[in-house]
């Protein structure tokens, strides 16, 4: 446990020094804040776009606060996931390839704690970034559009955070399985994309891919009866991915 904390501390310091702990929240804040702002100013933006015929009347209904937050989540579902996968794709494989993993693992450090420290640091960073970004989105929504139901927003936040955690864990799993960081990003994004597409094709199959949609419904205060089951399944899948990553680390030959 003491050693695990030393490892987590190292990961956190590394994230700060490499500026990852700065740009990841910034990207999330940018994505989050853009959504209510563009929704609110869309008529203005279109008016200034220029190539509209003289006298055309633009009428776009301003979306409800819940809708804006749901759109923010869908932004995170594409660009957000991409950024997360890129940020953590090399967390394990780069260390193994470069030999710094060997530096750590010839010391009396368990391979499980090695993985768990990286997992904890990655989750911490992603949750903080997501909280900052979603908080920014909420703030601008309240400012420009109106106050959504706070309970619903928090619920949606937690649900979507779980989906992000699942994708982060997948990225780390593939980072421990595959030699190439790009391969890990591709594999985890691919898996997430397949699950997301599957959720719209087969809405009755219970799998983690449904969670993004359930979170978007939750912020609009629409309860989904499947929510509890999907949360359990996603949590179990996340834990399974972590266990598989630990097993793959244990069997690994290091340079």
């Amino acid at each position, binding site marked *: 446990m*003491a050693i695990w904390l*030393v*490892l987590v501390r190292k990961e956190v310091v*590394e994230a700060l020094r490499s500026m990852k702990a700065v740009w990841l929240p910034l990207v999330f804040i940018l994505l989050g804040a853009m959504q209510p702002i563009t929704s609110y100013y869309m008529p203005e933006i279109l008016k200034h776009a220029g190539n509209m015929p003289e006298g055309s009347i633009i009428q776009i209904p301003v979306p409800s606060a819940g809708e804006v937050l749901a759109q923010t989540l869908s932004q995170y579902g594409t660009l957000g996931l991409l950024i997360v996968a890129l940020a953590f794709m090399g967390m394990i494989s780069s260390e193994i390839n470069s*030999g*710094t993993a060997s530096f750590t693992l*010839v*010391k*009396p450090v368990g391979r499980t704690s090695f993985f768990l420290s990286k997992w904890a640091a990655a989750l911490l960073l992603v949750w903080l970034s997501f909280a900052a970004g979603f908080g920014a989105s909420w703030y601008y929504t309240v400012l420009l559009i109106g106050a959504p139901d706070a309970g619903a927003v928090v619920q949606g936040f937690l649900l979507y955070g779980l989906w992000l955690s699942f994708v982060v864990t997948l990225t780390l799993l593939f980072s421990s399985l595959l030699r190439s960081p790009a391969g890990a990003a591709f594999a985890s994004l691919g898996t997430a994309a397949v699950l997301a597409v599957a959720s719209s094709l087969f809405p009755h199959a219970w799998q983690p891919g449904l969670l993004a949609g359930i979170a978007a419904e939750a912020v609009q205060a629409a309860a989904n009866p499947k929510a509890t089951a999907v949360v359990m399944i996603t949590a179990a899948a996340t834990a399974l991915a972590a266990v598989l990553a630990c097993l793959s680390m244990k069997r690994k030959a290091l*340079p």
Partner: protein
Amino acid sequence: MNELLCVTGLKRTFGARAAVEGIDMSIKEGRCVALLGPNGAGKTTTIRMLTGLLPPTSGTIKFRGEGMEDDFRRHIGYLPQAPVYYGWMSGRELLVHAGRLCGLSAAAAEARAAEMLERVGLSDAARRRVGGYSGGMKQRLGIAQALVHRPRLVIMDEPVSALDPIGRREVLALMRELKEETTVLFSTHVLHDAESVCDDVIIMADGRVAAAGAVEELRSRYRQPIIELRVEEDARSVAWADEMADGRRKLPHVDSAEHRDGSLRFAVDDLDAARIALMQELVREGVKAARLEAGFSTLEDLFLKVVEGRGNLARTRS
């Protein structure tokens, strides 16, 4: 002396290729042991298994009776062949981190890091980022991080091979100091380095232990009387030398003859008798000797013999 490390039947295969084919060796406490062998002999693979980086295909490693599952890594310090560190840490931070990973408290790790930096001469560079260190500095930092938790066994993989002559001398001096206080195992393909610092040698070739024992013991055990003869370049002498090397011409007390480095080298059973027989032969055949030298084979001859024609040497255990 106590046995510190005992390896039995250690084997590792990569696909169909066996890198290490079942080796046995033991290291006694307080000794400085060189793992000697040509490139590709399996030295690094063996070391990676000893340090727990690479799971063995079969075989056991015991450290004072403890197996791998008891995690004896806390007693081992390891310097890899090409050390890589977190470039964003400073030298001091890296040593503190290494110490803490080995279970030292924050204060103890700080104190020990300062001590080690002083010892390897990196105090001035302690606050600089490791990414900017030169090769020699990285090697010295590597030694410091291997020693930070006072290990009972220090394992070094090719500690001097990549260094310039000055760095080499510094590291060898450090190793000489080190062997006074702890047990050292290091691999090298340079015999001279091995002879200059170690007590015991384990010679590996093709994934097997070809010979092992104390340097002096090996030297006397495999010591063979030899005569080296250099002849002039005239046709008669050269023809005679070729006939000797081919084995077409035989002499009493001479076991074998071969060309090496422009000389003819005779392995003999009785130095005096062979010398007389050889000189008589030279006179009889009118061979012009340029230089004749009688002596004994060196450790280098043993190394070459083991590496080139392995399998015919009996294994000795220290």
